[in-house]
């Protein structure tokens, strides 16, 4: 493989836009060969701007990045020769068929004429689009478009793959199918995958390591298990039967740990100071105060808890405040 490595190394990467905050504000990261790196953050955090810089489509304002051993600023063509990318919107031509797309991409990527047909069939089969290959893309579902987008990114057998929110808007079945394929690429073909997502579950299931980005800065990095272990303690979530009891319930639960910040659900939640062992006391206290509950649940730490601990906000809905305009 050209460049001798399929790693990604980033140091102090910055991107400023004329009329806005720094979309990316000095990030450092390293993705090892064959690793799936999940880049997790809310809308506007700087994920897509980072991908555009790493794929050579946007020059950085400062900092350095090497992709596949090549400098993204000085060796753009070499970087492009070793990467594949499926950017945020599946940029497809509605009037072309799936097969037209793969053949066009194969020609533009310089695949020899004799190999194009075979490569095209192989990829369409791989992403499960053989039967729909000769239909115009305007009739494809969202999941089919994403799978075709992935096939196009793989045409020239890249060693590093960038996927920018590949499952946004997909139904659970399509999402799982895409996860399987991405996992297989890393596992069987040794492809390094840089995946941006705003879905906690996606990062948790797919990524070997996760970088959490907020307001252009990486606020936490590590394996999902290690990040969650940092938080350590489970949380208890209780939903009162009547809304009027919320304040009383809140007062009871606050005796047992630190309240958790606002989330989209209506429950009251605290991080249990004594861990799971504290749960019986919580139940007794609620019972003593005679607060009828609709639901009570204990939750192990999630990546959302990690995000909350690092930023003071929940990941869900975090993008609505202070989002960078161009990222």
């Amino acid at each position, binding site marked *: 493989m050209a460049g001798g490595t399929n790693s990604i190394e980033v140091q102090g990467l910055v991107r400023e836009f004329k009329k806005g905050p720094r979309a990316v504000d000095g990030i450092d990261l390293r993705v090892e060969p064959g690793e799936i790196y999940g880049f997790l953050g809310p809308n506007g955090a700087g994920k897509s701007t980072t991908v555009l810089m790493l794929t050579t489509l*946007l020059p950085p304002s400062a900092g350095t990045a090497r992709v596949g051993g090549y400098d993204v600023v000085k060796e*753009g063509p070499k970087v492009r020769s070793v990467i594949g990318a499926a*950017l*945020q919107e599946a940029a*497809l031509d509605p009037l072309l068929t799936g097969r*037209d797309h793969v053949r066009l*991409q194969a020609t533009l990527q310089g695949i020899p004429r004799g190999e194009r047909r075979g490569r095209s069939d192989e990829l369409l089969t791989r992403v499960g689009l053989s039967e729909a290959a000769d239909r115009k893309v305007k009739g494809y579902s969202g999941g089919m478009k994403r799978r075709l987008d992935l096939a196009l990114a793989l045409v020239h057998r890249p060693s590093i793959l960038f996927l920018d929110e590949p499952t946004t808007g997909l139904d659970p079945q399509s999402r799982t199918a895409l996860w399987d394929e991405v996992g297989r690429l890393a596992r069987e073909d040794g492809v390094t995958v840089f995946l941006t997502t705003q879905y906690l579950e996606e990062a948790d299931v797919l990524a070997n390591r996760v970088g959490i980005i907020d307001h252009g800065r990486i606020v936490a990095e590590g394996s999902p298990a290690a990040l969650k272990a940092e938080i350590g303690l489970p949380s208890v979530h209780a939903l009162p039967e009547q809304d009027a009891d919320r304040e009383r319930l809140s007062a009871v639960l606050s005796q047992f740990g630190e309240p958790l910040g606002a989330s989209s659900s209506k429950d009251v939640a605290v991080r249990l100071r004594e861990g799971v062992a504290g749960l019986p006391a919580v139940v007794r206290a609620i019972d003593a105060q005679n607060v009828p509950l609709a639901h009570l649940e204990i939750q192990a730490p999630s990546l959302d808890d990690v995000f909350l601990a690092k930023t003071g906000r929940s990941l869900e809905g975090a993008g609505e405040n202070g989002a960078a305009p161009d990222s």
Partner: protein
Amino acid sequence: MSAVWPQIGAVALRSITRTARQPASAIPPLLFPVSLMFVNAAGLDASTQLPGFPTESFLAFALAVPFIQGALFSTMNAGTDLARDIQTGFLNRLALTSMRGSALLAGQLGGIVLLGLIQAVVYLLVGVAVGVNFESGALGVLVLLAFSALVSLGFGALGSLIALRTGSGEAVQGAFPLLFVFLFISSFNAPRELMEVDWFRAVATANPVSYLIECVRSLIISGWDGQALALGFGVAAAIALAAIALAAWAMQGRLTRT
């Protein structure tokens, strides 16, 4: 360099395929200019009685107009297609390949030129069907097709330039009526030497579109007119060269890859 030609061919093929699969965009450039020609011919046929009018058939005189008007449609088609690619991110997909910006532009324009040639053949067939005699003969028809290709190339590059600079299909469509004005203030309906209103004759004389129309018209009604051909090809080549150079520069700016 050998990889460039298949890339240009692939982009040109895509452009043609797109047009073939949406007849709604291919039919107006054929129907509208021909319809306008028949309407004008019906209303202005008496002009042929004017002393000094160069032909007895107004249809033969007016047949030159669809060739240029059809090429103007190339502007809009090339521009809106490219603007759509910018807006949808398709251009970014192409930018991530090993393809050069110049190859992308060449492919896009190659498709437009081919479609322009197909349009020109249709106009020729319409002319033959209504009994227009081509004074310059078979060789003249070939020259006429070559000229149509050159004009389509120039206007197609102009449309691409607008798309690349603005990134907006609406901007391209907004510029289209403006270009049409140039057609209507040219010698499209009357020979310049017979225009009695001084300011209109001056405007038509300064308007490069007049020379494009007169070049085609000379091949149809006069035979071989060296001056009309030189002026027509000169103006068409100048428009094409300037528009291609500017579009190539704009493409470089649009493909902001490192």
